């Protein structure tokens, strides 16, 4: 504006006339939603988070696929782990965006103008909420190709996408609402982010506990009441352990109840009371302390429960009666030279050389690294079925068994079987019989593109980067950059 030039009388008249004409049928929550979406996606905040996720999921998928190449991990487990990563990062994004939504506006002094409009507080919160949960569908959309490649044609792909989308919606709806609750009640951005992240970590940490800690009384209780653990457990059992939804439905209650409570609290209680200055509309001090105390107690009790389970006493006694029937075990292979990832198939034959019927028999496979400095072998990783149970064999009768071995690591190994006559009573033991060994020599084999995942691992971040560049270009095109601080 030059000097103190004011609008002309014509301009003023025109403004007054224009002011009279109005009328929009668009609800204001939609207007707020539009602005928030532009801020998140055109402003770049969500895109940056998505790019970080894309790089992360690319790396994780590649590592998992590398293991898959060696058959270390079955497809359904890789799919589950990738989905778990997607959920963890998606929820983290949801809670960060939710926690910043109102306290951030407060700090940037933009909330007052919003509260001064005639729009109801609930509509403002609703518009912001819907925008805040938008990263989850995008996260899932990015994850689906990785899941497809990692599934490698396994039937787990369909259920993984279905349950992933559903559980993600449920959890991101709940955690975003929780983040927004803290944002409504906090006067500073740092407080709302801090509280939200601590609660998220408290929910997420038990998932990382060792298996024994999760199977204690409190561990199992936490698994049921902690929405994040419940969903994690539900997905694992459905996708990895082929359990049915009917069997696992109890684990859905916790996330559903948590979501219902925080959503009700957000839209029925907190949103209509949204204030410029923040702060809780009730005596929070006692509540906060007691909640923190309850969380700490639950955590401590969970630890105690699991450690009690760990400390279960081990007892044993030496018995005089040892069962040693005349049995024979043979193997059809003496040695195998393979490369990592190859499978070795062999057969064993068990013969009852006695004149009487044998007791039931148990046959177990074991693998030993012959190199004293080589990697420790976990036989579970090498074979899906390491133990076979045989019925009683008649006098002179033989039985054949088929075995499969997946070679995971390079090195020199001895594979052998142990035949154990079933003792039949608690006070009786038996003498196991060892088979001849198979000398397995495994050479290292590395693929640069395990499971065909490499194009996705590299392509994902590249596509997101290209999208960011496109958004930046589009935005620049519609904006006059001008000279900074040009006061005209």
């Amino acid at each position, binding site marked *: 504006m030059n000097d103190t030039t004011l609008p002309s009388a014509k*301009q*003023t008249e025109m403004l007054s006339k*224009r*002011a*009279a004409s*109005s009328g*929009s049928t668009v609800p204001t929550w939609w207007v707020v939603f539009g602005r928030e979406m532009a801020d998140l996606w055109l402003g770049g905040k969500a895109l940056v988070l998505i790019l970080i996720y894309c790089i992360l999921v690319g790396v994780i998928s590649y590592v998992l696929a590398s293991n898959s190449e060696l058959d270390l991990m079955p497809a359904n487990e890789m799919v589950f782990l990738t989905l778990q990563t997607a959920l963890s990062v998606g929820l983290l994004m949801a809670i960060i965006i939710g926690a910043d939504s109102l306290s951030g506006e407060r700090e940037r002094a933009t909330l007052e103008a919003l509260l001064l409009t005639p729009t109801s507080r609930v509509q403002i919160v609703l518009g912001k909420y819907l925008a805040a949960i938008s990263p989850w569908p995008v996260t899932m959309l990015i994850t689906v190709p990785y899941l497809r490649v990692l599934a490698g044609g396994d039937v787990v792909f369909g259920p993984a996408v279905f349950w992933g989308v559903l559980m993600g919606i449920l959890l991101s709806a709940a955690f975003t609402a929780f983040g927004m609750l803290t944002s409504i009640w906090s006067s500073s951005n740092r407080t709302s982010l801090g509280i939200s992240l601590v609660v998220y970590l408290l929910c997420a940490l038990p998932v990382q506990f060792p298996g024994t800690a999760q199977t204690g009384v409190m561990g199992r209780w936490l698994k049921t009441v902690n929405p994040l653990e419940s969903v994690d457990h539900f997905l694992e059992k459905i996708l990895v352990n082929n359990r049915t939804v009917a069997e696992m439905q109890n684990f859905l209650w916790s996330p559903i109840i948590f979501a219902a409570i925080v959503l009700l609290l957000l839209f029925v209680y907190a949103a209509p009371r949204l204030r410029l200055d923040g702060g809780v509309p009730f005596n929070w001090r006692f509540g906060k302390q007691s909640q923190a105390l309850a969380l700490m107690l639950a955590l401590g009790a969970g630890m105690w429960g699991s450690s009690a389970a760990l400390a279960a006493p081990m007892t044993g006694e030496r018995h005089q009666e040892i069962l040693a029937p005349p049995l024979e075990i043979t193997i059809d292979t003496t040695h195998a030279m393979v490369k990592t990832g190859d499978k070795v198939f062999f057969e064993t034959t068990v013969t009852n050389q006695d004149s009487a019927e044998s007791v039931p028999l148990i046959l177990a496979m074991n693998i030993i690294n012959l190199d004293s400095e080589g990697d420790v072998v976990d036989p579970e990783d090498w074979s899906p079925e390491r133990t076979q149970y045989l019925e009683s064999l008649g006098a002179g009768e033989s039985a054949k068994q088929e075995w499969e071995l997946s070679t995971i690591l390079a090195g020199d190994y001895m594979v052998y079987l142990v035949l154990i006559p079933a003792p039949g009573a608690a006070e009786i033991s038996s003498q196991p019989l060892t088979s001849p060994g198979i000398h397995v020599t495994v050479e290292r084999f590395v693929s640069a593109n395990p499971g065909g995942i490499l194009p996705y691992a590299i392509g994902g971040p590249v596509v997101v980067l290209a999208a960011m560049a496109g958004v930046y270009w589009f935005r620049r095109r519609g904006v006059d950059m001008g000279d900074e601080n040009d006061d005209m």
Partner: protein
Amino acid sequence: MIEQSTSLNGAAAEPILVAEQLHKAYGPRAALRNLSFTLQPGHILGFLGPNGAGKTTAIRILTTILEPTSGQFYVGGISSDHPREIRRKIGVLPESLGFAKQMTAIECLTFFGQMYGRSKADAKSYGMELLKAVGLEKRAKSLIGSYSRGMRQRLGIARSLVNDPVVVFFDEPTLGLDPRGQQELLSLVQWVARERNVGVVLCSHDLPEIEEVCDDVVILRNGRIIAQGTVGEVIERGQHNVVRVQVAEQSVATARQVIQALPNVVKVTPITATGDWLLIELASSGEFTKNMEKEVKAQILNTLVRADIAVLSFESEGGRLQDVFFQLTEEEAE
């Protein structure tokens, strides 16, 4: 109490803003006590008071951000019991003015226009006209993050008008602006009131600014009104037996000497750092009439002229708003 006045077309106007016994307490502490005033359309009401006087609380109540503990107010006849309806009728330029820096000015005004129920197209074209009115049309598509403070204040004024309000609250609009920017902003404030016939509440610490543009004034201290009325009325209540004279710096000592010697002059003291302004206190006893006051002032001038002292300024009309403000707030403090 500010009563009905005459509108631009000469007809008696109904007050557009009426505050009745507004009271706000935080626990045992009263932040605002029985605030009552009225504002006419087209008038500018200055809201004054030292820090902590209750100005911000009053503005936040009148803009529906805070609820009063008791009392009511009306905007265009709408009671404060209907805050959402009130918000349709008011515009606000808050003291802590924030904008989404990733938005352009026109996007910002379009958004706020839509929030007041305009269609997107209508909000955008009206926003453009407002930007023209505040002189920002050439930077309509610039990111607000690239705006200077003055430009943001002007954009804030445009934003406060997107709903065609009947009352607008400007809270410290010139804070942090250079003198030219201040003048431009004040001109815009006057344009909003005079040309758009909007009632304006102007909150400011800059007393000459209030004196220059306001019609009416309310002075608050400790949450209470200590003076209100037209600017002239409030100044009238100030100290009258005071004259200010500005003389050349080298003549200050001589001027003090010759003026001090005059009858009915009580005290002569320099009032600025350079000492070229002299504050002359006249006698204030019962016999010292208005006519005598005029005579003494004439004597002062004559004496200075006879003493060959260059008189640069002579303020013979009692106090300024600034004097009244200090006088009243100090009296209250005592």
